[in-house]
């Protein structure tokens, strides 16, 4: 539909890429995974990444991990899943162990607090900006926009528990997607057979 299919990444490339995603993944890994897989490596289209993430959210478990397992499986089967998930967790776990040790010693310094505070604010903006970028590039129909904005409102403003949001909006989203698909088909059919 969009550009021609990109070459399948090697196992090494998969490992290095997910290792990088894990290590730079401040403030939520999904923004970084999207940036790396869609914008930098071009292994997935915007639509493919969003679909994988959507499924990762419906399944139990961390959605970034679910998405990594599905992306790994897509390119290299079970080995791919192990590589992507292991690389994404391995680096940060080591960093975290180091941070935990440091924090136990220096966590009470005010400079550490300021540093973390500024980073956290920038990271929050990064996550919002990523969502805006995705919405802009995915070009949703009116129905899909409505579902997306409702999902943002329910979860972001009313703090409705996520399982409930998914249960409520999943079917509505599917309905909106089915509707959009049907409209597209009718337009296509109308062009082919003008008498219909």
């Amino acid at each position, binding site marked *: 539909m969009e550009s021609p299919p990109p070459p399948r990444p090697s196992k090494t490339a998969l490992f290095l890429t997910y290792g990088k995603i894990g290590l730079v993944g401040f403030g939520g890994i999904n923004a970084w995974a999207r940036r790396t897989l869609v914008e930098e490596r071009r292994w997935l289209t915007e639509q493919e990444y969003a679909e994988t993430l959507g499924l990762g959210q419906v399944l139990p478990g*961390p959605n970034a991990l679910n998405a990594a397992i*599905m992306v790994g499986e897509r390119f290299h089967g079970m080995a791919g899943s192990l590589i992507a998930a292991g690389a994404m967790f391995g680096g940060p776990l080591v960093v975290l162990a180091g941070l*935990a040790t440091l924090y136990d010693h220096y966590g009470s310094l005010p400079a550490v607090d300021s540093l973390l505070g500024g*980073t956290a604010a920038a990271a929050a903006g990064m996550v919002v900006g990523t969502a805006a970028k995705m919405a802009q590039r995915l070009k949703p129909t009116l129905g899909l926009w409505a579902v997306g904005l409702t999902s943002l409102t329910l979860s972001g403003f009313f703090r409705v528990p996520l399982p409930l949001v998914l249960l409520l909006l999943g079917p509505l*989203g599917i309905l909106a997607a089915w509707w959009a698909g049907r409209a597209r088909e009718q337009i296509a059919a109308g062009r082919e057979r003008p008498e219909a």
Partner: protein
Amino acid sequence: MRDEILWQLVLGFAAISLVSVGGGIAVLPEMHRLVVETHQWMTDAEFARRYALAQAAPGPNVLVVGLLGWHVAGWVGMLVATISMTLPTSLLAFGFAKFRKRMAGKAWLKVIERGLVPVAVGLIAASGLILARGAATGWVTGALAIASTIFVWRTNYSPLWVLVTGALVGLAMGV
């Protein structure tokens, strides 16, 4: 005694993992129940500080589980807790990935996948807003969050720039 604690970590986090629909952070209240209320491995304040540290570190934010394990049983606890939290759902996701490949091209699956996309994007935006509400404690952090949103949305430069800028501004202004 130590073995007993490790088994409690395994069972506790594996159980939480299987109900964690919507992501690891959605079950934070359950984790709190497990480590603070049920087993009293740490205080409320210790729990909050571990959570803040995990948020500031790179990597999937479910890694807070590793820090909780670290607090309870050091290195081994960190590994045991992380694996217990991630393995059960990973197997499920892998099985689903296989199934999805077999069903590839089926119209009904495509519709489901497309329908979940806006929910996923809305939830990303929501998690950003929730983070911003906690992080934007004054005008400096508020301006940082807004500037970073616009930068990431409207440009293709690496978001690392805004994180480094955020850290430096935070340090300089003493937020």
